[in-house]
């Protein structure tokens, strides 16, 4: 008799399956991958001012769009689609097989990471082509970018899985999840310049990952000189790393402990 496949092996297989399923849902592909591009087109056309010398709103906004893309694609999408999968009995069926929960989670993480990469490529390509977006040239900035995307999408995936127990049903999930994400976006300086927000908003935002992701992305896409205009007069990348790690740990803890495979 053969051995049972390992959790990681199955996780990778699930990742492939998740991507295939996702790719066949045309509406969600368009929505997830192109929505940030559409927003950039709108905001980039409306706000053509500069925020600081040499910093266009588009440049500032792209940092925010990538950061909030991480939250939308991971947290929001999973916290809505997992309850739907639960409603139709797909999760219960999986529970009845020898596939471990960790493989299911790994599959989701792979899906989120891959769609994030595609989304970022589209957004950056579009930004460069039409909105004069300037790409960072230093390799250190690309390194920051890489760990922010990796850690950010892992964190967002874990939190989305953890939060999927909150909506009672798939139909109601959107109503529970979307407002949280939209409010977070406003509070975290995605649509507005963060330092122009009221201090209490900034303080609330500082508890959650999105503010840190947005700030981290600004460190990649804005000139070094802009750091002095941040709240702490610095990009605070170390704090960002710590905050994201804490949220990742919280997400994993609740995903493992509280994940619901069945409606009741």
């Amino acid at each position, binding site marked *: 008799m*053969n*051995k*049972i496949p390992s959790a990681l092996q*199955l996780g990778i297989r699930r990742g492939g399956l998740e991507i295939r*399923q996702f790719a*066949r849902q045309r509406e969600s592909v368009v929505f997830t991958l192109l929505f940030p591009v559409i927003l950039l087109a709108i905001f980039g056309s409306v706000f053509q001012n500069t925020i600081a010398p040499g910093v266009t709103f588009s440049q500032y906004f792209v940092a925010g769009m990538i950061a909030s893309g991480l939250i939308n694609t991971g947290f929001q999408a999973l916290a809505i689609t997992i309850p*739907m999968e639960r409603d139709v009995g797909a999760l219960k*069926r999986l529970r*009845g*097989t020898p596939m471990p929960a960790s493989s299911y989670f790994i599959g989701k993480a792979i899906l989120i990471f891959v769609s994030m990469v595609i989304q970022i490529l589209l957004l950056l390509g579009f930004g460069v082509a039409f909105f004069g977006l300037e790409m960072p040239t230093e390799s250190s900035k690309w390194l920051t970018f890489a760990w922010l995307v990796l850690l950010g999408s892992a964190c967002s995936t874990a939190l989305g899985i953890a939060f999927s127990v909150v909506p009672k049903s798939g139909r109601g999930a959107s109503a529970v999840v979307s407002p949280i994400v939209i409010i977070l976006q406003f509070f975290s300086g995605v649509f507005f310049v963060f330092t122009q927000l009221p201090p209490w908003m900034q303080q609330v935002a500082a508890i959650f990952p999105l503010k840190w992701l947005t700030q981290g992305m600004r460190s990649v896409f804005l000139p070094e000189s802009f750091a002095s205009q941040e709240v702490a007069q610095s990009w605070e990348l170390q704090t960002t790393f710590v905050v994201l790690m804490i949220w990742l740990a919280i997400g994993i803890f609740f995903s493992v402990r509280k994940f619901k495979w069945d409606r009741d």
Partner: protein
Amino acid sequence: MSLIEVKGLKKSYGDVHAVRGVDLEIAQGEIFSLLGPNGAGKTTTVEILEGFRHRDAGSVSVLGFDPQTRGRESRIWRDRIGIVLQSSLDAGDLTVIETINHFSGYYSNPRNVDEVIHSVGLKEKEGALIRNLSGGQRRRLDVALGIIGSPELLFLDEPTTGFDPEARRAFWALIQQLRSDGTSILLTTHYLDEAEALADRVAVINKGVIMEVSTPADLGGRATSQATVQWRDGAETKSEKTDNPTTVVSALSTRFNGEIPELVVTRPSLEDIYLEMIGGVDE
């Protein structure tokens, strides 16, 4: 050795005592059917055996393993069982063959994908998206996913709900084939004729307790129960319950001088017995 052993199983949801002391023993190689009305504790019992729910009291052993255990041992156990749940409406953006192929990767010793597709009669539909399948085809896919891991024990929950009579017959043949291949099956069903056609033994559960375990033919003393002879006498339909229907018919035949008008001889069906059993325990 028994495949499933349940002793004193209890489960409550708040004040509702869904299962109130169930004992069961299911042998290797048999099709065992659990019958009972909605809310009888049937689903709760089965879901405890499947490891989906925790019990409050009692002992449960399925393939020598406590389904409540978690972790690696539980994976090894799940590798040996198959579960076909009641309703499944997965989004269906995958094809039949993709789905079966994928699930086969979960198991240490999967059956041949092509063979399984053949055996459930989905060969012509193997390239179709699941969402384009009919209800009956979807159900056959459910079964395919339940048996792909070559389970020693298969749980079948209401497998033929919504089938037309022809599809149901084809499905029964599939189940019988699985049994003759050595798979043991725990079947829950609303259809008494299905239990009668398939099950080696049936258990009737009601109000959280097992009322009787027996072969379908013997349930409720059915084999030895009285027959009913019914005939027409002028404008009137008459009937008589008797232990000796042949004697009664013969006497009637003499009386009518040959043919007895509208003669019917019946014994209680499994359904009659079942309804009598579950109707007789009102509190």
